[in-house]
């Protein structure tokens, strides 16, 4: 696979504060990456450094195996950082023409990309007349002008209303389906869970995990159960070797697996005990739960 970006021992200090601490990861072509972490965990700083707007304190990063200089590489990258920044007195078309000049690409794709984000009817309106959602969509159009090798999005849905969030997510999914590599920074875990195949998890500038979403925790999932005889069910589960912690909440039992166990198999097992299940669901921990477990583990 082609490596698009390699980050090695990257560190950024703002005075006494260490915003990014000895961070290393790499990005391969074709995957959708998420950078996860609470506010202030160093996501934006990391993106700022690789995008040439924040100076690193130490460490290194290289684009496309270090074949080109950073600013040349950035012409093959599409990136949106935080708020969309355009010239307010210029129309969408004029702004995109300027971006084409900077990126040294032809202007023929402007209309196509505006159509992709649904702004074609407003192409001759000044940027300052746009709503936040439209501004964000224009930013995506601008980032796509060069058909980038990688699209970098920093909190793309921040501050948008539900409809705007939905539109942006649809666009991201569309782009991901076209095979474009995406790096998505967010503190919204469900957002990352929905689109990403790989994650980098940061907390206070330290990397907690980098790799496939599936490999985040070696967990086997859990069952949510209810039965005619709740107490009998609980006693049975507590005795069974496959289960660890058991919680009761709202009349439902949540039993965490220590090893792989099929839902059908469990159903048969309890049936043999004479317990009749009225509710049986097997679930994997959501990214949010895994994330919280991971951060908790590292704290202790």
């Amino acid at each position, binding site marked *: 696979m082609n490596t698009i970006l390699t980050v090695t021992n990257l560190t950024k200090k703002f005075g006494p504060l260490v915003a990014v601490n000895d961070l290393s990861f790499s990005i391969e072509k074709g995957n959708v990456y998420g950078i996860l972490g609470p506010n202030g965990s160093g996501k934006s700083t990391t993106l700022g450094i690789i995008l040439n707007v924040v*100076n690193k304190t130490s460490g290194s990063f290289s684009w496309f195996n270090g074949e080109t200089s950073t600013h040349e590489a950035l012409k093959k990258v599409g990136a949106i950082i935080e708020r969309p920044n*355009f010239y307010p007195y210029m129309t969408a078309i004029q702004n995109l023409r300027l971006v084409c000049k*900077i*990126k040294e690409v032809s202007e023929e794709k402007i209309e196509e990309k505006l159509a992709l984000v649904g702004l074609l009817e407003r192409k001759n309106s000044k940027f300052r007349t746009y709503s936040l959602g439209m501004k964000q969509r224009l930013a995506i159009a601008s980032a796509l002008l060069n058909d980038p090798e990688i699209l970098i999005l920093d909190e793309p849905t921040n501050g948008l209303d539900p409809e705007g969030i939905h539109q942006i997510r649809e666009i991201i999914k569309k782009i991901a389906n076209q095979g474009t590599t995406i790096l998505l920074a967010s503190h919204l875990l469900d957002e990352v869970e929905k689109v990403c195949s790989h994650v980098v998890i940061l907390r206070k500038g330290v990397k907690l995990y980098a790799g496939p979403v599936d490999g985040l925790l070696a967990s086997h999932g859990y069952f949510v159960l209810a039965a005619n005889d709740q107490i009998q069910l609980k006693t049975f589960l507590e005795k069974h070797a496959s289960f660890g912690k058991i919680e009761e909440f709202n009349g439902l039992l949540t039993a965490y697996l220590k090893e792989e166990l099929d839902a059908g198999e469990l159903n048969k097992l309890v049936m043999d005990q004479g317990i009749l299940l009225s509710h049986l669901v097997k679930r994997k921990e959501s990214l949010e739960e895994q994330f919280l477990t991971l951060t908790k583990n590292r704290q202790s």
Partner: protein
Amino acid sequence: MIRLLQIEFIKLWNNRASKVLILSYFVLLTSIALVAAIKFDIGPIKFHLAEQGIFNFPYIWHFNTFITAFFKLFLAIVIVSMMANEYSNKTIKQNLIDGLSKKEFILSKFLTVLTFAAISTIFVFVVSLILGLAYSDYNEFSIIFSDLEFLLAFFIKLVGFFSFCLFLGILVKRSAFALGFLFLWQILEGIVRGLIRWKLLDGTGTDFVMGFFPLNSMFNLIKEPFTRLSAVQNVANQVGESFKLDYHVYFHEVLIVMVWTGIFIYGSYALLKKRDL
């Protein structure tokens, strides 16, 4: 290089305020020709400014470059705001993310400054040439094209001043404050001059030291032309005064301004490079 100029052109020309200021600047440059129309004809008193010799070659090069240099304040506003707006709109960040290097960013601004200065110089040259051909008492080729160093000085002066504006724009990041700072700096140089004259040196010494300050060195490039007019000198002679002033453009003065230009442009680059956006 053309690409960098085009980038800056798109940014400036689509901004209505910049466009109006640029256009009015060039209209003002042309308007110096209107001085020729100043004419009093009140009975016995007949006064026609154009016939007082201000449009004589080669004096016109000196006079016009000195006067038109004041209009540079219009472009100063444009230049300070084209820099400061990049910060307030945060578009500088987007430009860099889009793949413009910091060096290219400064270069595109500096090239714009050079272009403004070059166009102004050509403008002044053409307007003066036309005015001179219309009103000058001397029309020999060798006289017309003597003393052209004033045009060079004019160009250097504009480049230096605009580079200073550029630097202030980057340093202060807000156009209004940067312009305020420019005036403050002018006053500061005046105060420093006063202090040096008062406590340290005599007149010549003060002029020498002040010649190294940025705004003062730019002003020194083209000395005031009024005392050179024969009309003014006649009056002075009548009251028993005579001016022995040196009007020439000196190489060391040009050098000082060029060094300042270098410092300002490099300083802008260093600031941009050091800052996190």
